[in-house]
């Protein structure tokens, strides 16, 4: 975005006041939308979390003190950590392969990485419900291959949630790593090789450290998105795999416990912002936007 500093749109003429007015005018429509549908609701939610008669901190204490809720926090962080680890382990070699492919193949494989991002998470998750079923194709294939005699339970438990989340989030891990690897000057790898380094040394001492920023960006994105994941754990998980976002939904829709729901949301938001603050050093707004499609 830094290049945008030079973007046209600088007032060609007019007084500073007129220029400021024009800027304000340009920002007004978006400002109204974000003010009314983003800032205001969040502020109200914050207020709601402190509206319990027992005091401002009461809902927070209730959430943090209860074993059931602690289990929810544990689940949420557990899924986030495992999904982040798995997507990085799968995503790095995929990104590396992409970076090394010839242009034609690369375009095809990039399509495979990008295409899922256009499809609704709901549809992608529904697909997994069909595939992971007790009598679904995956179980039948496992039985046919002799790996198992009885159908494995892949749905409505941790396995289902992990498979679904890894599938949905893998592209978010691949893209930043792919970008980072592409930016590495191939001459550096040649230099390492020429100096006598075997492949694994070149990988460990040159390729990996130079793509670390991409890995960190990928890890941040996947972890953040995992923390707030709702649809996939809600549909693929069982009764004991409740995550923070499912808890929020449940508190609002089933128990109508608004202050608790608001407090849980604020906790989720705080986790997210804390993580972003830590990661903020290597993330730019453009990077965040770029992860779209």
């Amino acid at each position, binding site marked *: 975005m830094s290049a945008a500093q030079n973007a046209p749109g600088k007032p060609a003429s007019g007084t500073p006041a007129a220029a400021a007015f024009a800027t304000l005018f340009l920002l007004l429509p978006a400002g109204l939308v974000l003010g009314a549908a983003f800032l205001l609701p969040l502020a109200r939610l914050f207020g709601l979390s402190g509206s319990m008669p027992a005091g401002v901190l009461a809902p927070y204490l209730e959430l943090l003190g209860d074993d059931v809720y602690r289990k929810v926090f544990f689940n949420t962080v557990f899924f986030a950590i495992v999904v982040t680890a798995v997507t990085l382990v799968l995503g790095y070699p995929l990104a590396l392969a992409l970076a090394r492919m010839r242009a034609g193949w690369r375009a095809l494989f990039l399509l495979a990485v990008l295409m899922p991002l256009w499809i609704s998470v709901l549809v992608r998750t529904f697909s997994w419900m069909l595939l992971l079923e007790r009598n679904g194709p995956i179980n039948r294939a496992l039985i046919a291959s002799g790996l198992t005699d009885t159908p494995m339970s892949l749905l409505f438990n941790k396995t289902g949630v992990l498979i679904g989340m890894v599938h949905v989030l893998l592209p978010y891990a691949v893209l930043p790593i792919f970008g980072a690897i592409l930016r590495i000057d191939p001459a*550096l790898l040649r230099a390492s090789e020429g100096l*006598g*380094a075997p492949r694994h040394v070149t990988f460990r001492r040159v390729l990996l450290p130079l793509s670390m920023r991409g890995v960190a960006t990928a890890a941040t994105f996947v972890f953040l998105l995992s923390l707030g994941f709702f649809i996939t754990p809600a549909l693929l998980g069982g009764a004991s795999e409740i995550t923070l976002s499912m808890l929020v939904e449940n508190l609002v829709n089933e128990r109508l416990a608004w202050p608790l729901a608001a407090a849980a949301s604020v906790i989720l938001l705080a986790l997210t912002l804390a993580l972003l603050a830590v990661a903020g050093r290597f993330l730019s707004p453009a990077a965040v936007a770029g992860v779209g499609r």
Partner: protein
Amino acid sequence: MSTVRFAGVSRRFLEITALHPTDLEVRDGEFLTLLGPSGSGKTTLLTICAGYLPPSGGRLFVGGRDVTDLAPRHRNIGMVFQNYALFPHMTVFENVAYGLRVRRVAAQELARRVGEALRMVQLDGFADRPVPMLSGGQQQRVALARAMVIEPDILLMDEPLGALDRQLRKEVQLEIRRMHVARPRTTIYVTHDQEEALVMSDRIAVMRAGRIVQAGSGRDLYERPADAFVARFLGESNLVAGTVQSLGDGRAVLAAPGIARPIAGRAAPGLAAGARAAALIRPEALRPEAGGLSARIVERVYLGELAALRLVLEGGHELWCRCFSAAAPGEDKVEIGWDATAVSILPEVNEP
């Protein structure tokens, strides 16, 4: 023994032949420069020598051993890349130490050799600097130290001075030359800069369109170029087109339309009587001569000690003459001749 021998080495990229089958031998301890315009195949030849690019045909021998199928990391080469390819996440020390660490050199020995290498390129005291904070010239010297510290059998350099400004380039040229003389190591150097090639090399191979046109010492190439391309690429040259009138005993005579007297000179190989050819008359070979060809001076360029004069002959030919400023004729009408021993008759090549 680190001789390098290319035996019929060639390279195609799809339909394009980047390098025609090429034979070339670099002697042990020799500094050889591959000189040519971009696209002439010089970098392809160097990259094949490093092992980053497999040849499409032919074999490559180092010290008599066939290394054609050897991976770069087993070749013990020191390569200096065009933009240095320094590892941006490492300090100067770590960059230079890299090849030694790969070779599992013990810590003490490693520190000693890195220190020595940095001293050699006058960078002692810079060991802990991060690479991105160095100037271009310093980065260039780190790259040199990194390539030399592993005691490579061959040193390869791919336009290593291209990114430096002119003044610095001259200094580093002499520095590299001094290092080479002090400690001769088989070196292949790629450049498109004729001056650089002349300053540093024991021998120069001029390349054009995927072929080595001529290889020899700087003096050989300047005084006895094989064709008009080499003549134009090294030094200033006046080329006068014509047809070969007579040929024999290593000498040839050229008849040039518009010039009253035939031009005699050393015959380059590949001439045929009656064929089109060009006479090469170096600007410094032209001199005033009573009873010579009459010419008009249409432009004078003062170069300090020397002066360049643009002459137009009666027949319309244009020649550049170079002489001491003090000896430059004052009047605009002159009669000129040339030193017949400094003239070469060259086969004409079709410029791309």
